[in-house]
């Protein structure tokens, strides 16, 4: 009787694993089609239609693509912006959270509530004003509007402040002061290491957010050589390359495959960050 039950259990489990495998296939097949089609010539795709077998036209497609647009440049631009955003938002959010957590000063509650309220405001609300101000300061077509605002990342400050209140021991700070350490030294030597787990969680979000940002760079950047990857992808769509499906697929693949490779190495880290970010709410 017992084995009968476990047999039934096995069949149920097998069925569920089958469904999960199916879902994995659904998650991956568009990328697989992209890679296959990136290696096929335009006429091959038009005439032969669907296939799972790669072709041989990848070098030709690459030449067609690069003749029109240097996607690697877009890749580099996106990387520069995303790294700068990640570093600035991590450092200054930690600094701000530390300031709120350690010191008692007039108006600190009011200022923190202000952060909480504006955390809820969707980013598009100030877009028109933001664009106008950037134009007034002659900052359009530069990375300043994409990078500098990350110094004020409301959610990161909120998250780090919450984290700090659960791990901070004021005696540690006191001891450092008695040893003659200055306040900034205390922040760098004690505050940052203490917040590190939470900082790295938020750093991942900052990086992904910047990497995927489309509307803001679309609005503020004009020179093609400054385009970030998403904007470059958008430009690709309206270009002559769009006539050649093989080259088009290759362009998309170039924007996707490095991220997939990076994810293979970083997935554990990224997923645990998302889990931590959600539960700490």
């Amino acid at each position: 009787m017992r084995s009968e039950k476990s047999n039934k259990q096995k069949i149920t489990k097998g069925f569920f694993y089958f469904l999960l495998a199916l879902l994995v296939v659904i998650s991956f097949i568009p990328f697989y089609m992209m890679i296959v089609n990136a290696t096929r010539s335009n006429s091959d795709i038009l005439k032969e239609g669907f296939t799972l077998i790669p072709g041989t036209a990848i070098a030709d497609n690459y030449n067609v693509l690069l003749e029109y647009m240097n996607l690697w440049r877009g890749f580099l631009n996106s990387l520069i912006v995303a790294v700068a955003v990640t570093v600035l938002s991590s450092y200054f959010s930690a600094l701000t959270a530390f300031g709120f957590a350690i010191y008692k000063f007039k108006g600190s509650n009011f200022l923190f509530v202000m952060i909480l309220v504006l955390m809820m405001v969707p980013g598009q609300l100030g877009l028109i004003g933001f664009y106008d101000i950037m134009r007034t300061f002659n900052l359009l077509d530069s990375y300043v509007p994409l990078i500098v605002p990350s110094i004020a990342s409301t959610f990161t400050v909120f998250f780090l402040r919450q984290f700090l209140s659960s791990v901070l021991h004021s005696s540690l700070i006191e001891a450092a002061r008695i040893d003659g350490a200055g306040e900034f030294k205390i922040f760098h030597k004690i505050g940052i290491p203490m917040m590190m787990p939470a900082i790295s969680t938020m750093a991942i979000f900052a990086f992904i957010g910047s990497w995927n940002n489309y509307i803001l760079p679309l609005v503020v950047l004009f020179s093609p050589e400054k385009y970030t990857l998403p904007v470059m992808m958008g430009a690709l769509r309206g270009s002559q390359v769009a006539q050649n499906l093989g080259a088009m697929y290759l362009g998309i693949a170039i924007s996707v495959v490095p991220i997939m490779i990076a994810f293979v190495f970083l997935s554990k880290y990224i997923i645990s960050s998302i889990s931590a970010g959600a539960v700490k709410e």
Partner: protein
Amino acid sequence: MMQSKLNKYGYLFILPFFAVFLTFTVYPIVLTFYYSFTSYSGFGDAAFIGMENYQRLISDDYFWEAFYNTIYIWGINFGFQLGIALLLALLFSDIRLKMKGLSFFRAAFYLPNLITIASVALLFGILLGWHHGTINHLLLDLGLINEPINWLNNPTTARWSVALIGAWMWFGNTFIILMAGISGISNDYFEAALIDGANRLQMFTKITLPLLKPIMLYVLITSLIGGLQIFDLPMLLTDGRGSPQGSLNTMVLYLYNQAFKFNNYGYAAAIAYGLFIITVCFSLITFKAMYRKSVKGE
């Protein structure tokens, strides 16, 4: 004593944040509010015209169509996204099944989130192509359709395409968040239920779901706020104006086109505030609905 002297450092530590915050976040929001009462075209002076933009907004069929499209797309998207994520969570939280490979599946399902939406939109744009799209080729080969379907040229299939691409991208993220919430639930509850002979579905609806309510609220609110701002996919899947027949014209896409294509900054500013008011209303309704349910449940 020592501490109170040092408290002035608090201001110093938060100064960079607030300098940037006021310049790049607060001031633009205030300025946008001001422009929403003007006929500002991006050049010259902004002439004050009172409530005219808001009156126009209320009677603007395009805006309300964009509102309808946005909700329509978000509704389908969220239904699938949450449905799949919940089923997966049900499967992996079952203590009788003890499914293995959670970390692999989480990673596999999460992957599409990391890809730039622009790339996803371009990829599906050509996969869904009419005569030369891979999806039509496949369906024709399998004999499921007799002639190619012009997916992105029909309002219904275009909306469903955007919604399902979104669900495909984001269900992995929702799944991870739900699993994070479930891992916080004590195993004792499930073991006690097991001894009482509860079945899979009972355990899920009576234990997991009620205890998951705060996380569900988080998922719902973040998805709603994000969904109301959907822009990249509809912008890049068609001609950037929300074709076919305006069926992909979402609120932010409308805002973008009014401001940066037609130079109607004043009106676009009013659209931004209209969108903001709608977002606040929806968030409040969601909070209220979840709160009332929990009171009833007690």
